[in-house]
């Protein structure tokens, strides 16, 4: 074996170890969702599943009582509705506002521009959970606890800085001459943005949208404080419904987790083209 082969083996070996490290918890979640509670709780652990079933999903979606440990089914569809409303609305607002902000930072010069930019980015350094108490107190005073609007507001605030940062970078890649030419071609500033710069930065905007959506979709800590009932509880918060005083329905929880992952996966696959292609420039030199 020569040096190159040894190198290759080492690279493959570490890659496989890394993949196992990353994948195992996820696989375990998926596997647990299809296994009976006895198997899951067995000691010593049963590594290779002996039997698999769909009971948890049936219970979750159709409210069957068989095998769900006698507990009343969890209102998954309400949670799903809440999750969808909150994630999509907050993503839409954050991307809209953030894109305008990013464009402003990329294209316009104003006093203390860099300081403002830094300030906006600094808001992301604060751990979200440390904001939960102040947000809770404020929201309880103005009646936003357990409402869609309240949670949407929090996600919009969380996602705008990131969207600004990402779209700013994309807008900077578009040569200024592009909108200048459009303006001499008869466009107003807004038309130039709409017809030229927006389509050219759609990969960036799509990426920003995916990230914003995933953050909203997956967030647990903040929402768990702000959501009290089926009026606003999201799927992730709903996971805790599977815990009782003395027991945790692990297979049920994992089934819901799988249910949470699927839409996120579908969405990511749908827009991944934009994530990877980046900008295909032919309009300028090179």
């Amino acid at each position: 074996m020569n040096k190159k082969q040894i190198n290759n083996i080492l690279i493959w070996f570490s890659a496989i170890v890394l993949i196992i490290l990353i994948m195992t918890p996820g696989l375990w979640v998926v596997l647990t969702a299809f296994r009976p509670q006895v198997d899951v709780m067995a000691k010593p652990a049963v590594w290779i599943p002996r039997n698999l079933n769909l009971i948890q999903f049936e219970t979750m979606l159709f409210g069957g009582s068989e095998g769900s440990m006698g507990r009343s089914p969890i209102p998954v569809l309400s949670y799903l509705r809440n999750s969808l409303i909150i994630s999509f609305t907050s993503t839409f607002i954050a991307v809209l506002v953030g894109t305008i902000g990013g464009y402003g930072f990329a294209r316009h010069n104003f006093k203390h521009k860099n300081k403002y930019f830094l300030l906006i980015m600094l808001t992301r350094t604060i751990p979200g959970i440390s904001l939960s108490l102040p947000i809770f107190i404020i929201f309880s005073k103005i009646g936003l606890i357990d409402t869609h609007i309240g949670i949407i507001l929090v996600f919009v605030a969380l996602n705008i800085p990131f969207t600004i940062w990402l779209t700013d970078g994309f807008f900077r890649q578009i040569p200024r001459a592009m909108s200048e030419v459009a303006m001499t071609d008869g466009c107003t500033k807004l038309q130039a943005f709409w017809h030229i710069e927006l389509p050219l930065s759609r990969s960036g905007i799509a990426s920003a949208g995916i990230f914003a959506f995933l953050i909203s979709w997956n967030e647990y800590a903040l929402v768990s404080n702000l959501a009290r009932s089926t009026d606003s509880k999201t799927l992730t918060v709903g996971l805790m419904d599977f815990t009782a005083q003395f027991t945790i329905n692990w297979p049920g929880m994992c089934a819901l987790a799988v249910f949470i992952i699927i839409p996120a996966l579908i969405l990511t696959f749908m827009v991944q083209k934009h994530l990877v292609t980046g900008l295909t420039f032919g309009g300028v030199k090179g």
Partner: protein
Amino acid sequence: MAKVILQGVSKFYGKVQAVKKIDLEIIDKEFLVLVGPSGCGKSSSLRMIAGLEEIDEGVIKIGDKEINNLEPRERNVSMVFQNYALYPHMTVEENLGFSLKIAGLAKKEIEERVHEAAGILDITEFLQRKPSQLSGGQRQRVAMGRAIVRRPDVFLFDEPLSNLDAKLRNQMRTEIKRLHQKVSTTIVYVTHDQVEAMTLADRIVIMKDGIIEQIGTPLDLFERPATKFVATFIGSPSMNMIKASIIKNNDQLSMKTNDGIIVPVPKDKQNSVSEGQNISFGFRAEDIVPLKFGQKPSSAWEMQSSVNLAEPLGTETLIFTNFGEIEIVSRMFTPEQVKSNDLLDFALNLDRTYLFDENSGLAI
């Protein structure tokens, strides 16, 4: 079709004044080239005409209309950019038709005008392609097509050829000239390349540090440079320039270089200089003739010097030699082999020697 007038136009970037109160009148259908080294204010001036930069001072008119406060789209100008700035997400046809679509023209008319422009520029076969599928020269042509399709009052070109390789640049230069003949519209063209300026322009405006050094036809600038800067900027190779002071020598005024070489002041300039004045004198490469290979001028001053380097270019050879301590270049048109260290006699044509005041830089 329109003339363009700039009156006392200035541009500031912070505290730096990039354009300093320039006055300029561009005649209808003229091909005017703004040329100068980078940072001379030529691009800023062009962008002010286009409406892409604020006019900080002065007035710009297109036709008889003041355009200071008009948006770019209201000025009816078309601009071609250095990096082409084609819309990468549109086909060539869409690129060409975009301005007409924005203007709300009927589909059929857009199609007609796009095909007409494509015909003029010979890009009809690429209409369905995206810009990324075109070569540099083709992209440049599309950029020009996009400009002409609007039938603007004025074309603005901002260094349109500087991204192309040398061969393509020559080819596109000819095409731009031909385009001007076909569409006969006022053109303002910015470049830093004096060859481009000389070959394309009806008139050239030479700028430096935000002011206009000289305006004139290419031959005007070549034959009668108004300043030392213009003299060295126009022409290739650059004019030889030597510092000297005026002394009295045998009842006539002469120029004494820093190395002590004494050259008589040309006869027609004898009354224009005074003893003790600091000047520079310049002469083009073809006006210092190696006597062995060329004809001696009628009013000549001779010197002997050895060859540092010879560059044979086919029809001509550039000979680098020393004038005192300063290296100068001489051009000869005979295909003779000259080698380094050859000792040659040179004759300087005094009738074609230019004098410039050292303090003001102005021609004497």
